[in-house]
Each structure stands twice: as structure tokens, then as C-alpha cells.
């Protein structure tokens, strides 16, 4: 392509259009590279003779899905995940909402150091704490208990949840709240009846985000839960393909899809509601 100045005047392929096409081509190339592993996941789940390679199934069927939809493989681990992550999320969101209220509404010389400590804690690599957590849990007999694991998961997500929740709460104007105060409402009534309903989208984002992170967390339940019947899906899938032996790859792909679906759906839910991950990116940015 020669770069003649005259080409700028040509109406069919303006400079802007050429640029857009170049950008489109580059993005499509990267997207194709990113899509290959995802394509394997979808194609293999429909292929009873799936191998490690991407290939279009000769006769697509849902046999892999019906093979894994049993109590042992799918329902029990998914229920365990739901109980573990559901209770931990509820605890995190409740504690974060309570904590965000005074941090957002009152000024004190404590609130800034508190917030800075919380922000500091959001950055700590939680992976590094897992060995002492294990040792501590053995000591205090919390090892292999679902509630102990849920409590730790809740605490590990709490700093970020407080931070997000406080930022969302800052965006709620105080006028309505003041009316409630003059009517003699307690802080709890104000929080519960006035503020939380007003910040519905914010609470949704914190809840969904917390739940999704916990749903995908592998290391925490991998270390702290030992009984096979208590393992959540993130750990059971690992034991499923952990031995690299004669694995039914198609079934593993089908189970991976079943296990991933809730978080993907939740992500779609919040990105629809709040204009994409940009909100989340912005919130992370501070």
C-alpha cells in the first residue's frame, strides 16, 4: 500500500477507514488467539470422543452433560460451593455495609487511617497467609469445617468489599437521610430503610463480585477442607482431572461449563446493569 497524499482525497477508503480496518484486523487476530481454549471447552463438551485438541465433534451430543449430572460429580460439589460461598458472601456484604456507614457518614481522625489500613489489606497476597491459616485452623479445630472456611473467605474479601461499599455509599446524597434523622430514626433504621435501598446497584455489584471471586477460589478450600463430601466444585474439578490419567475430557469440559456458568451469568448481570466492567475497573482504580 503506497502512501500517496492523493489517497486521502479518495472517498472510498479514507485514512480513518483504513485505520479502522487495521485495528479491526489486529483485534480479530488477538481475539482468535484468546478464543482457541474457549473453543476447545465448548466443542469438547459436545464431543463424546474429545481429546486434548480442538476439533469439531463428528456427531455433537449432550451425552457428556448427562454423564456428569450426577449427585457425586455435579450436584454435591455445586451445592457445597453454594453453601460455602453463599454464607461467606452474606457475611461479607453485611459486615461491609455496616462498616461503610460510619466511614462514609461521619468524620473522625480514625476514619482515614482505618480506610488506609483496609486499602492496604486489599493488596496483600492472601496466598501467602494460607500456610499460617492452616496451622492456626489446626490449632483451634476449625480445620475441615465449612463455617471456618466460610469465615476466612469472608474476612479475605472484606477489605475490598468495605472499600467498594464505602465508595458507593459516598455517592448517596444525605438529604433524605437527614429527614429520617429528624423523624427520630436510629442509625440502623436509616441504613436499612433509606440508604441501602437507594444504593441497590452498588450493593448488587459488591455482592456479585464477592460471590464470583469466592466461587472461583481454589486455594482456600483446597487447604482448609479435607472431607471429599464437603469439597466445593473448584476443588472437586481439580481432583477430577488431577491424576492426568485416563480422563474423559469431554465430561471434564462439560463439568467445567456447568461450574463456570453461574459466574459468567452473574458477570453479565452486573455489566448490563452498570455499563460494563468499566465500573469495576474504575472502582478498583480507587
Amino acid at each position, binding site marked *: 500500500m503506497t502512501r500517496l497524499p492523493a489517497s486521502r482525497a479518495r472517498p472510498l477508503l479514507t485514512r480513518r477507514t483504513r*485505520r479502522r480496518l487495521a*485495528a479491526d484486523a489486529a*483485534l*480479530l487476530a*488477538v*481475539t482468535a488467539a*484468546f478464543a*482457541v*481454549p*474457549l473453543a*476447545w471447552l465448548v466443542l469438547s463438551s459436545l464431543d463424546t470422543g474429545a481429546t*486434548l*485438541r480442538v476439533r469439531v465433534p463428528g456427531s455433537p451430543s449432550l451425552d457428556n452433560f448427562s454423564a456428569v449430572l450426577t449427585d457425586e460429580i455435579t450436584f454435591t460439589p455445586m451445592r457445597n460451593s453454594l453453601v460455602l460461598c453463599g454464607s461467606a458472601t452474606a457475611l461479607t456484604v453485611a*459486615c461491609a455495609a455496616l*462498616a461503610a*456507614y*460510619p*466511614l462514609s*457518614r*461521619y468524620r*473522625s481522625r*480514625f476514619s*482515614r487511617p482505618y480506610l488506609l489500613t483496609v*486499602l*492496604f*489489606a486489599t*493488596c*496483600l*497476597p492472601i*496466598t*501467602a*497467609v494460607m*500456610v*499460617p*491459616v492452616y496451622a*492456626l485452623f489446626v490449632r483451634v479445630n476449625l480445620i475441615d469445617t465449612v463455617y471456618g472456611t466460610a*469465615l*476466612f473467605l*469472608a*474476612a479475605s474479601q472484606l*477489605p475490598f468489599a468495605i472499600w467498594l461499599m464505602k465508595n458507593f455509599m459516598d455517592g448517596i446524597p444525605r438529604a433524605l437521610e*437527614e429527614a429520617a434523622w429528624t423523624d427520630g430514626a436510629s*442509625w440502623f433504621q436509616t441504613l436499612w430503610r433509606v440508604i441501602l435501598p437507594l444504593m441497590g446497584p452498588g450493593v448488587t455489584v459488591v455482592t456479585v463480585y464477592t460471590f464470583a471471586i469466592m*466461587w*472461583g*477460589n*481454589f*486455594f482456600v478450600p483446597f487447604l482448609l477442607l479435607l472431607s471429599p463430601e464437603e469439597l466445593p466444585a*473448584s476443588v472437586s474439578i*481439580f481432583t477430577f*482431572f488431577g491424576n492426568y490419567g485416563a480422563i474423559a475430557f469431554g465430561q*471434564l469440559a462439560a463439568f*467445567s461449563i456447568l461450574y463456570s456458568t453461574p459466574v459468567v451469568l452473574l458477570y453479565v448481570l452486573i455489566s448490563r446493569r452498570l455499563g*460494563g466492567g*468499566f465500573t469495576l*475497573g*474504575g472502582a*478498583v*482504580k*480507587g
Partner: protein
Amino acid sequence: MSRAATTTTAYGTTGPGARSRRTALLRWSPLAPATLLLLLFLAGPIGYCVYIAFTDMQLTGQESASFVGLDNFRHAFGDPAFLNAVVLTLVFTLISSILGQNTLGLALAALMQRASRAVRTLTGAVVITAWVLPEIVAGFLLYTFFERRGTLNAILDWLHLPSQNWLFTLPILAVSFANVWRGTAFSMLIYSAALSEIPQEVTESAEVDGASGRQRLWHVTLPMIRRSIGTNLMLNTLQTLSVFGLIWAMTRGGPGSRSQTLPVFMYDQAFLKSLIGYGTAVALLLLVVGALFSVVYLRLLREEV
């Protein structure tokens, strides 16, 4: 403590000392559950971490752990396996977070600004799906991609290029690429937001002044988003430092210890070799590195808090 009495808050009743102190206590009481949870389950383990790192605690017979001072740390810095893990962690972080996720994320965000709407939506959907998938699923998918009988070699065969056993010959590169695949969406989102905030007149006037694409990027765009670059690098690096599941699923740190980054090394020492004290000393070092990054991050954000 006369602060409560002297500061007038929006709803403050500046009554006599004792009463306003009670009000202040009541006001801050909602912080209690979160603080308790954080102290018990986060600050507690971190404190315990500092303690165990100076003992010879083992997985069996925990009651008999005794103080060994700096022995664990001295041992670490003389241990080739530890130094190997440090080097691999640096390589993994440099390739996957700083070069990979950060640069690719910025490139994707910049290209998306010019691309047509359909392509932009498609790219966003695919890259973000890779990010949203659970860690273990991502590890499993990239295992099948890089495995000897996997898709990458199939593509190379098809192109008549030499194939090889990636997870055996270049395990650290394979897990680094896996981390790029999984983590680029975050940088892409942060940079998309930052680029969309740059007023169009600025880049246009630079273009009119005859600045080339590269000059515009270097002298106009990058300086304007430098805060986002700092934040993004910091968060990417911290996230990458603590990656465990992805590597464990793909290579378990192997073959040998050729993809054994610090978290994997820590797990190996503490649980497979039962050296809780030593493993915790490694964890403490990791935590200190993380804390240093966090402090830098807080400095970057200082004006905004």
C-alpha cells in the same frame, strides 16, 4: 477525649462529655463486626505467620515447635530451591504481568478505540470471558492447549512448524502465557476507561501539529494515563505474585521445579515436606514484598483517599 464534643458533625449533638462519648461509641459501633472478623481471620494469621516463621514448626508434633531465630531465613537464602523459586517468580511476573497483561491490555484498549463497534464488542466478550472463568478451569483449559497432544502443537503441525512438549521444555513460559490469557482483561478495562477520559482535542491537535503515531503515544497519551499505568502495574504484579491454582493445575510446579514460583514452593515445603516453619518464612517474605507494593500503591492513590 474531647474530640466528640468539639467536632460538630452533620448530625452531631454537642452535649456534655460523657453523653457525647456514648453517642460517638454508638456511632462507630457498626464498624465492630467487620473489625472483629478482620482481626480474627486476617490480622491474626498474619501475626501468627510472623511467629511461626521464627520456629521450626512441623506438620507433625506441632506442640514441640521451638524458636530458631533467623534460621529459616538463613536457610532460605542458602537454599538453591528457594533461589530458583525467587528467579522463577521474577520471570513469571516480568513476562506475564509487566510485559504481557500490561502491554497487551494497553494495546487492546488503544485498538478498541479505533475499531468498529462489532469487533470491539466481540474482543471485549472473549477477553473478559477468559478473565471471568474460575482459576482452575482456566488452568485446565491452558493445560490442554499447551500439552504435547494439545491444540498448540496441532496448530504448529498444520503450519508445518516444529512442535514440542511445551509443558516440559518451557514450563515457565507456558504458565506465563496462561496468566496473560487469564489476566489481560483487567488491564484492558482499566486502560479503556483511562483512554476514554483523554479529551479528543488533545490527540487531534497533536496530529495536526504533525506528530507521528509513535510520538503521540509517547509524548501525549502515555503521560496522560500515567496514574492508571502505575495503578495497573501495581495491581497486576500483586495479583501475579500470589498465583497458585493456575500453575498447580498446569504443571504442579514441575517438571522438577522448573515452574515452581514462590507460592508453589511455599506449598511444597509446608505441606508436602511438612516444614510449616520454613514454608511460613517463605510466606512471610512474599507478604513483605506484597506489603511494599501495597505501600507504593497507597502513595499513588494518596490524593484520592
